[in-house]
């Protein structure tokens, strides 16, 4: 499991972790049943506080991405196909919302935005 933390990012560190783990689960880099490093091991590797990794794992568990078994560790949870698709949709939705907000702030209209979307989708293989 590859996680990269950036101290200069405005996002709290635990969010950076949850986001990357979610992405890896959704993209099937991490598969159902795969074990995650213990919160302490992860904290040591990333050189961050154990409390942060603990919080990240708690968030992931709350949202159903991982399961934690007492005494055994954390594993990628069985992903309901429907739920997974929903999560994927949500991820993209969030990103699109960000783009929409930005566009509105800069005064870029809906038509222009749609055009941009089509172009980008075609361009990016």
């Amino acid at each position, binding site marked *: 499991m590859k996680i990269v933390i950036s101290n200069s990012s405005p996002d*709290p*560190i*635990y969010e950076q972790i949850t986001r990357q783990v979610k992405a890896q689960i959704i993209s099937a880099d991490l598969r159902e049943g795969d074990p995650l490093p213990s919160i*302490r*091991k992860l*904290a*040591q590797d990333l*050189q961050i*506080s*154990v*409390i*942060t990794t603990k*919080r990240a794992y708690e968030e992931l568990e709350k949202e159903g991405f991982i399961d934690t078994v007492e005494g055994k560790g954390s594993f990628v949870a069985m992903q309901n196909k429907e739920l997974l698709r929903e999560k994927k949709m949500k991820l993209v939705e969030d990103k699109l919302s960000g783009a929409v907000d930005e566009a509105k702030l800069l005064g870029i209209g809906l038509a222009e935005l749609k055009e941009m979307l089509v172009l980008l989708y075609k361009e990016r293989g």
Partner: protein
Amino acid sequence: MDNAIEILGLRKAYKRFALDDVTFNVPQGYVMGLIGPNGAGKTTVIKLIMNLIRRNAGEVRVFGLDNLRHEREVKARIGFVYDVPRFPEDLRLGQIASALAPFYPKWDGGRFLALLDEFELSSRTVIKKLSHGMKMKFALALALAHDADLILMDEPTAGLDPVFRFELLEKLRAFIQDERKTVLFSSHITSDLERVADFITFIHKGRIVFSAGKDAILESWGVVRASDGSVRPDDIPGLRGYKQSEFSLEALTSDIAAARKRLGGSTACDKASLEDIMFFVSRGETHA
């Protein structure tokens, strides 16, 4: 969450300084950093836990045991590392270790030698010949060799070069992998604490300013910077100290979210570093 250390209403008075009603807990299984400017009382707190100095009032419980009534039991489980390791100069590391070993029921000679190896020290070296950093590593090896449940250190990284500091912090992180182990260390080098601490207790002029999770602190404290005199210190919610010059204002707030909401886009609200917090609380103005 069990507490490795519980401190309640601790008081110690000196001629020109006093610890006043110090209360905080050190949760078991984590690293807590005790920060504060020089003379704030960090060393005093640690010495009081070890009963090297006598308290005037208050309670100190380590592993649930009163540190005075169960002094020997408590100390047998503590690995104490002084800021300047104090050993007779002309002795070899191995001799010192063999002199101290019998006091600790859980002392493991094999583990001690393995640690010396890991720290690149030889038991035949004379203490006099070690650099400050190597002496610290030796002191840590002694503390770890008897399977201490709590490591207590007073300014362990002061006077160490960056390489040694990094190594020391690494060793602490490895130590804390066992969730029954706890670390409490005092430091005025905030960057070290930012890197390794889970909890931070900030002490200033003998009083506790806060004792909380490091991430929570770093996410909710912030520094407001306004350049055109548009913001007055009183406008800032959660103000904890500020510095004002003719053209600019820099202020520390313990509630960055509220500050951002109130002050909007004209002022910069950045996350505070521990250094910022320490600076503004100890040197900043608090009233307009």
